[in-house]
């Protein structure tokens, strides 16, 4: 069977599965649409959360990035998993106990203020849109690379499929499709990793394989460090980034993870509080399978690559080399005209540039694995991108239909006697579906015309979530004295300081600046941590100089702290 045909068959089968699940789980109520009727089993919810969380970037790019930066890549590994400990211990059980539909619901009710609710809606929309644009782009790229479909058409196919199951099935449809998508993506990620681990070290478990000995008796990591030294790259197992920056970036990613609305909302979908805790545990376990394999793939791919290309004759390169050269993700420039590839750490002498995304995508070809494994990888990458896009879509649509229309606009219209009564459940459901529809169109637009700042703003999304939601929610639960004045000013200070720092150092606004001007040597990616601390400080200070929250709010907080019924 040709490669093209096997890819079409595997992608076709997985898509048929997703559509089938969507039809089976059609929803009729807002509770089902927003939070799957609170009936999701915690293990299924763990899988859905894992698929929701692991985006195209986790699947395609992360191992590649680690491959090139070695130890410095640890910020992603620790940052994107450690946040789940915060979620499980500090947020998920209490938010589930609170028992509403969305994050702005909690902020608005706990801080008895529609201003707080509006700030929260704004943050949720900004965070989710920056994310979803990247996912749609990812879908387009996978289609174009594997199926030779135009990127734009790839985006259209992705939009169509997400639209279908998100609008029809809401959270319920999304949840069960994500369970299927998790299975597809983890299988697709693990199969090549296991094959390659056996090939290189004889150990079938990649997590152990990359600490094992290769055929020539040396430990793989020592060998890679040796190769790096020889070619003038920095040592693989130590980094180049400053310690303080690594510290702050890791913290920002962790706290950002815990503050992302599309992750938090998943914990509203289970039956009881103890299930929310369990979900977080299962989610992290399912995520950890991929996240502990990625650094192993990084080492295998790096070693394989160096051994295949370094000081070898260009004319003798295998077919995958030529294929990726055509996509321009791999570029060879024979500077000294000797026909031999010099792959070196020194920029001036180096003749080969490699895009980080190749490492996962080309891995099966480099290791000469069969066609169906490559087809599987394409289906896995699509599953990763689609599942994340669908989760984000739901946050966007519920922010508009529930938080904005139902909670703010509709009551206002009733008060002004423009409407006779509040929006009905049926009306809200229609509003949710319409806003999901427009959100997909907008996401698709950004997928086709990606603004230059997409890549830069993914870090911003984490920084924003860390700087805005996390302190407001944590203080809302753990600090009874916290009032609306404190929460609102904290969120605003957190977001604006984060935005200011990003715009200054990433986009050159406000006079711009270089690395030497960084605040205590912290990069914009790590600044979310500082903005978060600012938010905490301002919130506590302001709330101590303003009026105490009303008694019924104190009771609400006390109730969050008691065991579930």
């Amino acid at each position, binding site marked *: 069977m040709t490669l093209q045909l096997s890819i079409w068959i595997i992608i076709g089968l997985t898509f048929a599965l997703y559509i089938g699940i969507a039809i089976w789980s059609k929803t009729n109520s807002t509770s089902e649409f927003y939070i799957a009727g609170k009936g999701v089993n915690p293990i299924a919810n763990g899988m859905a959360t894992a698929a929701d969380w692991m985006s195209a970037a986790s699947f395609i790019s992360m191992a590649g990035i*680690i491959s090139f930066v070695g*130890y410095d*890549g*640890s910020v992603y*590994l*620790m940052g994107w*998993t*450690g946040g*789940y*400990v915060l979620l*499980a*211990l*500090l947020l998920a*059980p209490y938010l589930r106990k609170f028992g509403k539909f969305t994050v702005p619901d909690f902020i608005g009710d706990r801080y008895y203020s529609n201003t707080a609710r509006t700030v929260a809606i704004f943050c949720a929309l900004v965070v989710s849109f920056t994310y979803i644009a990247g996912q749609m782009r990812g879908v387009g790229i996978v289609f174009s690379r594997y199926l030779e479909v135009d990127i734009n058409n790839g985006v259209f196919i992705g939009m169509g499929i997400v639209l279908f199951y998100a609008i029809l099935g809401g959270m319920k449809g999304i949840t069960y499709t994500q369970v299927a998508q998790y299975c597809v993506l983890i299988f697709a990620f693990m199969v090549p990793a296991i094959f390659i681990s056996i090939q290189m070290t004889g150990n079938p478990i990649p*997590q152990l394989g*990359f*600490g*094992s*000995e290769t055929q020539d008796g040396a*430990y*793989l*990591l*020592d060998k890679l460090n040796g190769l790096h030294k020889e070619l003038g790259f920095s040592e693989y*197992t*130590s980094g180049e980034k400053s*310690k303080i920056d*690594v*510290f702050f970036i*890791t*913290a920002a990613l962790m706290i950002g993870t815990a503050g992302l609305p599309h992750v938090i909302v998943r914990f509203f979908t289970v039956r009881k509080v*103890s299930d929310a*805790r*369990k979900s*977080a*545990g299962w989610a*992290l*376990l399912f995520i*950890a399978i991929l*996240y*502990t394999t990625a*650094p192993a793939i990084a080492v295998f791919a790096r070693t394989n690559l160096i051994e295949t290309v370094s000081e070898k004759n260009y004319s003798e390169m295998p077919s995958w080399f030529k294929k990726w050269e055509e996509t321009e993700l791999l570029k060879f420039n024979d500077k000294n005209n000797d026909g031999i590839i010099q792959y070196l750490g020194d920029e001036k002498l180096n003749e080969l540039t490699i895009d980080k995304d190749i490492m996962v995508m080309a891995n099966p070809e480099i290791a000469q694995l069969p066609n169906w494994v490559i087809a599987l990888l394409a289906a896995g990458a699509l599953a990763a991108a689609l599942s994340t896009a669908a989760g984000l879509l739901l946050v966007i649509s519920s922010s508009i239909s529930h938080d904005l229309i139902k909670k703010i606009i509709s009551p206002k219209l009733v008060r002004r006697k423009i409407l006779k009564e509040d929006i009905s459940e049926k009306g809200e459901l229609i509003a949710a579906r319409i806003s999901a529809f427009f959100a997909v169109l907008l996401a698709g637009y950004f997928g086709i015309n990606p603004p230059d700042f997409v890549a830069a703003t993914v870090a911003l999304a984490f920084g924003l979530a860390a700087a805005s939601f996390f302190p407001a929610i944590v203080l809302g639960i753990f600090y009874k004295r916290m009032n609306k004045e404190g929460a609102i000013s904290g969120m605003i200070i957190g977001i604006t300081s984060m935005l200011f720092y990003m715009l200054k150092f990433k986009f050159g606004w406000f006079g711009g600046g270089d690395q030497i001007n960084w605040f205590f040597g912290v990069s914009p990616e790590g600044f979310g941590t500082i903005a978060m601390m600012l938010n905490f400080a301002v919130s506590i200070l302001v709330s101590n100089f303003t009026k105490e929250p009303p008694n019924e709010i104190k009771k609400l907080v*006390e109730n969050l*702290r*008691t*065991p*579930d019924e």
Partner: protein
Amino acid sequence: MKEKNKLYWRKNLNYLIVLLSIWFVVSFGFGILFVDQLNLIEFYGFKLGFWFAQQGSIYTFVILIFIYIYLMNKLDKDFKS
């Protein structure tokens, strides 16, 4: 009833303090701040600091959450009866 709830909350906070301290020490401590010292120790082909940063911390996170699930389920049960 009120006293009982207070006790429940205090126990919960104690668990949080202990578990989050481990969370911090393993990731930020072993994986970042003391990574160079730990890298001097090698076991099974891994430098220890590097291993904590790319493997050990993640395993610890998973275990911490499951310990918390166990502790809280037990606490819930104790306070219901």
